[in-house]
């Protein structure tokens, strides 16, 4: 195992890129904190939260976890299963809306 490894892994990335990402993460975290600070509400809040969240997650995965430099075979294996999670999320949104509807309708407001 070690023989082939050694040649390949002597090449690393410049320290600058890590410092950059590091800085960006601080800035983005600060921004998402500001979303709360200024008490944005509604769609604006949601889209900002999600935007910063995905940006941060993306930076961590891509650079700190080196996914940006990995080959597509690995990247795709890791990302495709997320479609199942996405499906689960969408359906559970529909489910909680239905649940809360029946609760309000039959236990609170009636009609």
């Amino acid at each position, binding site marked *: 195992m*070690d023989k*082939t490894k050694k040649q390949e892994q002597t090449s690393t990335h410049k320290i600058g890129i890590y410092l950059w990402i590091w800085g960006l993460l601080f800035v983005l975290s600060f921004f998402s904190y500001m979303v709360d600070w200024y008490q944005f509400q509604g769609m604006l809040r949601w889209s900002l939260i999600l935007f910063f969240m995905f940006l941060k997650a993306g930076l961590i995965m891509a650079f700190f976890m080196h996914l940006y430099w990995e080959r597509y075979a690995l990247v795709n294996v890791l990302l495709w*299963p997320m479609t*199942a999670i996405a499906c689960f999320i969408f359906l559970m949104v529909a*489910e909680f*809306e239905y*649940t809360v509807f029946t609760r309000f309708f039959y236990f609170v407001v009636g009609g």
Partner: protein
Amino acid sequence: MSEDFNDNKTIQAQSSEAISGGGSGIATDADYVRPAEVADQDLYHGHSFITKWIFCQDAKVIGVQYFLLATFTGIIGLILSWLMRLQLGFPELVPFMTAEHYYQFVTMHGMIMVVYFLTALFLGGFGNYLIPLMVGARDMVFPYLNMVSFWSFFVAVGVLLASFFVPGGPTGSGWTLYPPQAILEGTPGSGWGIMLMCISLILFVAGFTMGGLNYLITVLQARTRGMTLMRMPLTVWGIFTATVLAMLAFPALLVGALMMSLDNVLGTSFFMPTILKAGEVLEYGGGSPILFQHLFWFFGHPEVYIVALPAFGIISDLISVHARKNIFGYRMMVWAIVGIGALSFFVWAHHMYVSGMNPWFGFFFATTTLIIAVPTAMKVYNWILTLWRGNIRLNTVMLWCLGFIVTFVNGGITGIFLGNVSVDVPLSDTYFVIAHFHMVMGIAPLMVIMGAVYHWFPLVAGRFLDEKLGKWHFWLTFLGAYSIYFPMHYLGFIGVPRRYFEMYDSPYVTSAVGMNEFISLAAFIVGAAQFILIYNIIKTLKTGKPAGHNPWQACSLEWLTPTVPPEHGNWGDRLPTVHRWAYDFSVPGAKEDFITQTTPPSEVAHTKVEKT
């Protein structure tokens, strides 16, 4: 410690200069296989009895350990099913059987059979034994982790069985463990029993994850030279895909079990709405029982394919070897396995059509569920098309294969009934469902296990199992099991609900009593017939006909080890190189009716072998 490793020797044998005909200069040579990418694995060789047989790091030993423990739990499950059948067929014979007992038995039977028997046997047992051999690896890539995996399973089984002896007994909540009922009084084992069940499941998942990582990385990263994914035997494909499903599905079970334990112990209300019990309102409120069902089936549906896919894979290999014909449409088979695996994450709520979930889900899940029938159908067609114009050896192994096809297609078709949402409405939660899943999960994969045992026993033990006993075993099991479950569908049509301790004064009973007695009788016979196999194994270990090398004239790697049974490290000094797929049977122009995977093209230049 250093003498425990023999790395120097093997690494040298593996370095690229030592490869005959190798080197990039002669790349035009038909036999050329590129040099090894990774250095040979160094293995820890145990010396004492303990490191060799108990805390052993050899995947083959671990596989056998898994196999034996899973069979042991399976026999417990079988005994429980006998007790259930006694109650259902001849209640007067078991006056000691209360409803509590009955429900505990049903629950433990279901859970043991699905998780601790089939999953452990296919993935832990066959996976461990066969994956490294079939892909040409020396062992699993993380032998230590693999060992821990088995012992976690061992502890999980221990905890599970311990629940029979705690106050209140094991949980009787049904294997689906639905809250609120699972953790409320009124269900047997709602205190200790369900707790231990959750703990045992969590241990199982943890242990399985360790094993699963091994299987996956071994297949992905430790294949031998020349072994591409599209040359792997379908057995490996089936187990591999099932492992992927398990790694992604078990988390949902883990989360569900954890949250339910918290509801039980801390009094949180994840799954618990306001509940009135014996005139008093319990301190719960606001939770959602349906959420648990979603979590459970997000795990549960992939789980049923976790036990089905290895069966699909193994059966393909057995049929191909014993019909002396390549598996028909290998590519399609691989894609079907992968497709079924992927789709199985999008169909879970077909178990919940009448659960009171958002009714619009019915459309979505009925569609996805029926779509999954298409790749499955392709697999069925390819099995029978492999028989077509084959040269079928009607030995015991092949009999199990034929039995599998009949029972699987039967169970699959009833799955189509249930998947079609409005057809499921009258049939859900009746014996039709019981019949469906025993046919497709209880019997069909069992046929595969049996076939696999008869097929690979000569490899593991070096001797053939007795054919005559084998045939008895097969016919009793197949005909018996078919006559248990085929009529059972009709109980479902009448409307007999599942999980009924007895039907008592219901008008439905009268006509069903006779059938229940018949089913129970068949169940006793089938169960007893399994002991033929155990007898056969014990007898054969001593007196069986020696098998020698590659007794079935198969092509795949596991039969090509230098020693039979294979030793630790599998391949002696040098790893095999692979030049073709695992199914070159009856190639026109070849001397024999099979060409092994390691045969270089130059040796069979005159034949019409297709490039794979």
